[in-house]
């Protein structure tokens, strides 16, 4: 696990250029991994039905958004972002970096901030938030969230702050992550307690 080197302020967008062939490659890898995850037969039919499912459309829109962001077509990027928000309540900001083989299980309520870098083959479930703020001590320019490869983020997880998450990490549902996590860890949020109805009443 090592932290990425961030470009100095003001030069980010040059660093984040994404060519069209790169965009197509990322889209294909997303669809291929989702087909394998759903245990469907690889082929044109299953690829198309994955690509035109809501989660698939939301991700495709994000990939195009990222390409347009590199070309400095900001108004178009904004429009696509609004489409994602209105249709699927998904908000993936255009400057976020997401590696190949990304799976979003449900598009609803997913929010990924500009200053987020996600590695390869990550899985994100329903209603996941990744953002650098608002929080005390927020540095809008230099704060970044770095997430490694093969990370599985379960439903309702909030990742907030300037932090690094290692490779092969699993984050349990409804956890609030506010500190860095090393490689190969499982993070369980809170311990639950079950009480019988008689005890409560």
């Amino acid at each position, binding site marked *: 696990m090592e932290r990425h080197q961030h470009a100095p302020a003001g030069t980010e967008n040059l660093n984040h250029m994404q060519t069209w062939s790169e965009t197509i490659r990322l889209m294909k890898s997303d669809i291929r991994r989702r087909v394998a995850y759903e245990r469907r037969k690889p082929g044109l039919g299953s690829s198309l039905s994955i690509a035109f499912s*809501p989660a698939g459309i939301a991700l495709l829109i994000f990939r195009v958004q990222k390409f347009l962001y590199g070309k400095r077509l900001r108004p178009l990027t904004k429009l696509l972002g609004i489409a994602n928000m209105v249709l699927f309540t998904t908000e993936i900001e255009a400057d976020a970096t997401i590696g190949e083989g990304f799976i979003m299980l449900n598009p*609803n*309520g997913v929010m990924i901030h500009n200053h987020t870098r996600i590695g390869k083959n990550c899985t994100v479930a*329903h209603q996941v938030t990744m953002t650098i703020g608002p929080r*005390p001590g927020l540095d809008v320019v230099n704060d970044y969230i770095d997430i490694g490869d093969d990370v599985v983020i379960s439903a*309702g997880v909030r990742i907030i702050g300037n932090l690094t998450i290692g490779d092969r990490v699993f984050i349990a549902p409804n956890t609030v992550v506010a500190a860095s996590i090393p490689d190969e860890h499982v993070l369980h949020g809170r311990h639950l307690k*079950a009480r019988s*109805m008689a005890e409560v009443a």
Partner: protein
Amino acid sequence: MTFARTRFLIAQDLRERAERSGKRYGWISYLKVLFDPPALAVLIFRLQAFVHAKGFRRIATFLRYVNIVCFSIDIGSGAQIDAGFIIYHPNCVAICDECVAGKNLHLVHHNTVMLDPRDVTRDGRIVIEDDIILGCGSRIIGPVKIGANSFIGASAVVTEDVPPFTFFLEPEFTHSEE
């Protein structure tokens, strides 16, 4: 699943909803659905399940997408949910195909019912028995069984079996000064 069964389920959902909101149930309930997004979302799901059982998978998937875009409710066509299904606030609810639920399942909002995302085999089932209330923000993850008459509190996470007549709560938090 026959059409008569679907009509029965829809009627039971509307009856339960009318009872819970202290209103009379009658034929006018069917008209009120159009002005009641939560009931409309459940109605769309019932039609979706019917169409799916009849073998029209594409139409079922289309109805599911309608629910996702209109209400951000994602209920898999294969989910088997019995009569008296209520969603109080139709916002960010996800239920997977592998869910089998009994009568009078009440969801509030921001609920997730799904298999563990790490689970590669994906052949488990989530069994929810009768008269369950899932509080807002509660997550039910993985192949689990929830016993009858249980209450799952707000923001609780269920990853193991819950016995019947259980009050399942998150521990209380205290605030701290900076």
